[in-house]
């Protein structure tokens, strides 16, 4: 979406035009949902957060700044909703941890993408991505999958550009290391230190 179209859409959204909403929805629904499902690793959670993100847009439509960048705005809301969700879950999980710790084996969580990945390499990338810490996964998804520029991603995550670069570098290393340990084709792993233990 070019900037001129985006600004027009923002103006129409401010007026409460349903057609403008549909255009924005058509443009951003898929990347936003992809981001959320990979971040949360649960389809039902992603669906809920996705819906809430759009409801927030509508709620704030009349108060949007005329020069709002819709992509970063939507991804910021989605990301913040996911952070809130994770915090709420962490509280529940800490309460449940004492009980699940007694269980004799752990349940391995499989991401929805991992199940449907077309080939082995994709499956491994999905698996490695799903096992990264949320903060690392988040920056990789925003930069690599959502295709946002780094300054927008820094704004979305509330980081300075240099802090983002550091986090991205670290996340990339973690991902590459996880893939290396999962024996991925060397062409995608340029400059990655080898896995110490197998």
């Amino acid at each position, binding site marked *: 979406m070019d900037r001129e179209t985006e600004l027009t859409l923002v103006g129409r959204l401010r007026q409460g*035009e349903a057609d403008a*909403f549909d255009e924005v929805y058509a443009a951003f*629904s*898929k990347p936003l949902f992809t981001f959320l499902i990979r971040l949360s690793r649960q389809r039902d959670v992603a669906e809920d957060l996705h819906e809430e993100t759009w*409801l927030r847009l509508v709620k704030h*439509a009349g108060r949007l700044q005329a020069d709002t960048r819709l992509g970063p705005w939507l991804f910021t809301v989605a990301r913040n909703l996911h952070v809130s969700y994770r915090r709420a879950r962490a509280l529940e999980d800490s309460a449940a941890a004492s009980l699940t710790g007694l269980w004799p084996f752990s349940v391995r969580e499989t991401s929805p993408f991992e199940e449907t990945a077309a080939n082995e390499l994709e499956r491994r*990338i999905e698996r490695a991505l799903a096992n990264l810490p949320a903060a690392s996964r988040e920056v*990789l998804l925003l930069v690599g999958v959502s295709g946002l520029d780094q300054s927008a991603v820094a704004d979305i995550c509330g980081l300075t550009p240099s802090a983002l670069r550091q986090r991205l570098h670290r996340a990339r290393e973690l991902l590459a290391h996880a893939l290396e340990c999962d024996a991925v084709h060397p062409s995608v792993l340029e400059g990655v230190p080898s896995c110490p233990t197998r």
Partner: protein
Amino acid sequence: MSDPLIRRLGELPAAEPDRTRSEHIRTRCHARLARHRHRRLFSGTPPSGEGMAPVWQSLIAVLAFVYLTQAIRFALALYGLT
């Protein structure tokens, strides 16, 4: 981004929300937009609560002024200056 690994991430398949759920979202959002529009067009008042803020602020200012005046009067009377 020239990094092959990051580029590879961009090639991963995208996901789509459930079609029924998408329709549900659009319906809810359209309804809310229509409500906002309706409120703006026919009531002529700003969205919920915004018009009340100046009224409250004025009321609090008046009450604070009365309170301060009374406090000063009381202090002056206490020292026999009135």
